[in-house]
């Protein structure tokens, strides 16, 4: 195990070429996956990935690593189901162990409204061949004895849950390194520490990018920059229906393996899992105002720790090890935003909000097909950028996590 974790990925460092078939802005999961699938599925190897910082420095390295497919709109279920299936084979495909571990995920209900929602979720998932069941308090206790069914005895006991047995976690850094190494083996260039400062256009078409190293021409430009998508799109004069909100999380110090399942509660706005290293990982809802500040707050820590102790009393004695913040690009309907923009050959993979990590393989694969063939595959077609213009929204707020 330690040997696997210590395995290093070294990126080939070289000067950017003068020209690429495809330039990808953002060396996170979605950008690198797009590069990898362009090279492996479509034979397009003249691909340059430009990352402002180090690969996985943004949302891919800051999320809480949950993989699941229990969504509540048929379009989303199909998309995340594909993504989950790709994740299952990813370690083999990339020859890099992403430490995917099947845990089972609860979505707890403390109110009539949530109960109805979770029951609907289970029924819809079953109809679409995704393994989600509705269970009562007795079964919850049997599957996860650590849960306090009274939820701290504050008048909002747990009255049911949807349970998604395939729910898993994976190591997010490994996903980034695995895609980067595999893409590099196929001839893709990954440039770390190269910020894109401009997107050059000609006759309403993206033709290249500006970097500190000069101008680089490109047959197509893809933005995969998570929370910073609005700023990158603005370089091409494109406005997006996105608002960037901070999302905070923390881990406790390492503890013996005790919490095998993942526990989430939309009513209490908290989700909890135990990492492979033994840390108890806790996340919550996004901050209500938009911001690019990644400073963490004490009020989040205090409130979230209290809710965690209400649900899982054994956590009361644990000490907090680390706290961090990431930036999420929230779309109006809580579904992704993937497609070609109004500037021709400028593609945007954004709107991944709080649900981007689990979407990496299918998002990258769909975007690669769109860039290579000019046609969006049915998995990502419902998430096109201008769907709001003709009211084809994909409203899925209840599946976005704990909002």
């Amino acid at each position, binding site marked *: 195990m330690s040997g696997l974790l210590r395995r290093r990925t070294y990126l080939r460092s070289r000067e950017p070429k003068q020209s690429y078939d495809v330039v990808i802005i953002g060396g996170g999961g979605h950008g690198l996956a797009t590069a990898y699938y362009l090279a492996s599925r479509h034979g397009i190897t003249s691909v340059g990935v430009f990352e402002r910082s180090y690969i996985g420095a943004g949302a891919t390295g800051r999320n809480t690593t949950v993989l699941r497919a229990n969504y509540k709109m048929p379009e989303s279920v199909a998309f995340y189901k594909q993504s989950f299936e790709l994740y299952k084979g990813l370690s083999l495909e990339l020859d890099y162990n992403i430490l995917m571990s099947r845990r089972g995920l609860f979505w707890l209900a403390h109110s009539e409204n949530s109960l109805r929602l979770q029951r609907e979720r289970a029924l819809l998932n079953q109809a679409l061949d995704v393994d989600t069941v509705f269970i009562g308090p007795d079964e919850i206790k049997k599957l996860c004895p650590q849960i306090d069914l009274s939820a701290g005895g504050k008048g909002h006991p747990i009255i049911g849950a949807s349970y998604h047995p395939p729910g898993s976690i994976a190591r997010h850094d490994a996903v980034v390194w695995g895609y980067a190494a595999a893409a590099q083996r196929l001839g893709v260039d990954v440039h770390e520490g190269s910020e894109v400062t401009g997107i050059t256009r000609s006759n309403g078409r993206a033709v290249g990018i500006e970097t500190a190293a000069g101008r680089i021409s490109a047959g197509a430009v893809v933005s995969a920059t998570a929370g*910073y998508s*609005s*700023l990158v799109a*603005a370089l091409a004069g494109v*406005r*997006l*229906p*996105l*608002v*960037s909100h*901070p999302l905070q999380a923390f881990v406790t110090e390492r503890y013996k393996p005790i919490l095998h399942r993942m526990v989430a509660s939309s009513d209490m706005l908290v989700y909890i899992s135990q990492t492979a290293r033994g840390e108890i990982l806790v996340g919550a809802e996004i*901050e*209500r*105002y*938009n*911001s*690019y*500040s990644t*400073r*963490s*707050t004490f*009020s989040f820590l205090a409130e979230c720790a209290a809710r965690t102790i209400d649900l899982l009393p054994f956590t009361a004695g644990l000490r907090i090890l680390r706290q961090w*913040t990431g930036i999420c*690009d929230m779309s*109006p309907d809580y579904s992704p935003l993937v497609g070609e923009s109004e500037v021709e050959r400028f593609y945007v993979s954004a709107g991944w909000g709080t649900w981007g990590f689990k979407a990496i393989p299918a998002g990258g694969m769909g975007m690669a097909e769109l860039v290579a063939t000019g046609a969006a595959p049915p998995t990502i077609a419902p998430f096109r950028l201008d769907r*709001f*213009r003709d009211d084809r929204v994909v409203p899925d707020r209840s599946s976005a996590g704990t909002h």
Partner: protein
Amino acid sequence: MGFKIDCPNCGTRSYHEYWFGGELRAHDPSMSEDEDYRNTWLRTNAAGPQTERWFHFAGCRRWVTLERDTRDNSVTIPRIDIETLRRR
């Protein structure tokens, strides 16, 4: 990350007392359908000073318009009145 908002009626209070109303947008009934779509759905989502609205739900229940730097959450203009907004 915490910051304070200057309410004209209640004084300076923590942002926890307010609901966030988002970046300020134009409201013009004479907009074309395309302009209306852009105004309704698209956002600047600026990294820097942003003119925005907050609703003081735990106080006087009135709206406050201010300018905040979204990079560090410092309030750069604590209060913007309607005359100033009209002149913009």
